[in-house]
């Protein structure tokens, strides 16, 4: 069966510091991968998605970037965090264009 991992679970970072969140999927090959952000009490905002190694599509302009160095690894990064980057970050995978399966999420607090 497929499993999706995200780490860390919680992160507190100062403004201006770098960020690296990692997501890995087990049990499937060539999945579509997604990064979402959810502000407190709000809906899911699609940040990036990838249909293959090195292929990244960005949804919104921001100071975040994503990379997919391996088939089942998706990384979300920032060189300098802003206060507005605080939120709940979710990684998801899908096989094809339908159902997405979400990871446990990373709660990021930028102070």
């Amino acid at each position, binding site marked *: 069966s497929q499993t999706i991992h995200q780490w860390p679970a919680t992160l507190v970072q100062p403004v201006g510091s770098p960020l690296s969140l990692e997501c890995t999927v087990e049990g499937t090959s060539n999945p579509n991968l997604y990064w979402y952000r959810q502000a407190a009490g709000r*809906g899911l905002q699609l940040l990036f998605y990838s249909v293959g190694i090195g292929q990244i599509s960005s949804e919104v302009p921001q100071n975040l970037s994503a990379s997919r160095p391996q088939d089942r690894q998706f990384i979300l990064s920032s060189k300098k965090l802003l206060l507005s980057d605080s939120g709940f970050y979710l990684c998801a995978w899908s096989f094809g264009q339908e159902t997405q399966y979400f990871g*446990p999420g990373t709660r990021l607090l930028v102070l």
Partner: protein
Amino acid sequence: SQKIEQNSEALNIQEGKTATLTCNYTNYSPAYLQWYRQDPGRGPVFLLLIRENEKEKRKERLKVTFDTTLKQSLFHITASQPADSATYLCAPGSYNFNKFYFGSGTKLNVKP
């Protein structure tokens, strides 16, 4: 641009009653629509998918309808239980894209 609307107000119902949640969309012709459940501090979990040629779909106590004319989907939970309390998200999708967008969700509170 496409817009997905779910009632932002929480829906409070009594245990045993039927909960009905609404998802409306505009500027969009999805080929299918999905419903997810999200508990606090957790990622969404897939519940049901209904395609544009299906009027209704059922899974245990869950029922989803999809009206492409009204551009609306209804999500029903019959014989609701306190364990059904969560936020429910809808997500219309198209096979033309490798992504889809979620509504902001409706919080359901089932009181014992």
